[in-house]
């Protein structure tokens, strides 16, 4: 069942590759704007890099979140999904995993390349990539709650950011913190394990409130 949902969403995403590419370019452009805004001084850039990359990753995720349920809602597929003979939470979990594969994973792949722009050492690049790999699933999971709550609501996109971004703060802190810790010579393990805990919570806890919110949206 999980595989059926993931497979379907991935197939749909592949037919609409322009969306994925647009979100990736958004990530690249936002990250590249910062050196232009603050100047090319390598020390400063290195210090800013973890925060900039992580904030850009948060924003890029926000960009792809509204479509998580909106298309299915519009064409009636969401009703069929809620009427499927499985718990809706499992279906949501499948959609969250598919969203991460399509929206989160490309950010993880791009991050080391962008990190080079900020003159990060290879250690820091590695930790950055690992932190994004662990942290982005949490972004997809927590974001799904907001996407479901704002489904079919006036001004849904802006409202979604207002609801979800505060909830992203712990992920941002531990994700960027892991890279910071590496840069300042401390180990990133503590940050990464807390990030892992958040990701587990986000992916496996969040589908249930999301499912409840979807049922409310369909009433």
């Amino acid at each position, binding site marked *: 069942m999980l595989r059926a949902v993931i497979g379907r969403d991935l197939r749909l995403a592949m037919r609409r590759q322009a969306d994925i590419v647009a979100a990736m370019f958004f990530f690249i452009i936002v990250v590249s704007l910062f050196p232009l805004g603050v100047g090319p001084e390598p020390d400063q850039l290195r210090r800013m890099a973890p925060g900039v990359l992580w904030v850009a990753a948060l924003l890029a995720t926000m960009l792809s979140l509204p479509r998580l349920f909106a298309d299915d809602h519009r064409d*009636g597929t969401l009703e069929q999904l809620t009427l499927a003979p499985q718990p809706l939470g499992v279906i949501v979990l499948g959609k969250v995993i598919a969203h991460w594969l399509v929206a989160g994973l490309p950010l993880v792949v791009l991050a080391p390349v962008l990190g080079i722009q900020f003159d990060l050492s290879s250690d820091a690049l590695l930790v950055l990539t690992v932190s994004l790999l662990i942290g982005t699933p949490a972004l997809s999971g927590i974001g799904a709650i907001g996407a479901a709550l704002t489904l079919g609501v006036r001004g849904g996109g802006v409202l979604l950011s207002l609801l979800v971004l505060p909830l992203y703060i712990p992920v941002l802190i531990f994700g960027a913190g892991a890279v910071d810790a590496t840069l300042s010579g401390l180990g990133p393990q503590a940050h990464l394990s807390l990030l892992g805990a958040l990701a587990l919570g986000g992916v496996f806890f969040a589908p249930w409130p999301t499912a409840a919110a979807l049922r409310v949206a369909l009433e």
Partner: protein
Amino acid sequence: MLEASNLECVRGERSLFAGVSFRLDGGEMLYVQGKNGSGKTSLLRMLCALTPAVSGEIRWRGGPIGKLGEEFRSELCYLGHQNAIKEELTPLENLLSSARLAQEALDEDAALDALALVGLRGREDLACRYLSQGQKRRAALARLVNEKRALWVLDEPYVALDPAAVELVAGLIGTHLQAGGLAVLTTHQAVSVPAAAVRELWLGDSDATQRPQ
């Protein structure tokens, strides 16, 4: 098998209907009729447990549908106003993926046969966004060809279809009823379903009466 008692529906601040009761057994079909905005779609969504009733109760095989949950949903086939067809996918992919999501075994040959039956032969591999409105509806209705679940809830199944296709869908419903299934449907078209025990339900302004047929 399907019993509704004293259902009430409120939309916004208006009560659409109240006191709706009926009982439907195997092989029977319920025609829900009424003017636009009389709450037909709302009633159908209540029967699927998509919308909770303000008051009243719906029972399936004796148990309230809210409590039955997945047990009820595994016997329910709902076809709404919207086709639940993905524009990016082909009719074949749509049919296969909806069967997989409903956890029904449907192989590709059976799916192709079903699409041929609803008149989409030669369109199986064309993305649905290139299909006409009627063809999309046919693609959605192809689900019914191999549908074995007991309760069909169909919202305006004949809309956008040409007379031949209407005949075909009525035939599918008839076969389903003969096999002991139940069907609840709304329509503005007078279509006779072959060999079916038909009940009618009229949704009026604020109360509903069941007319004997």
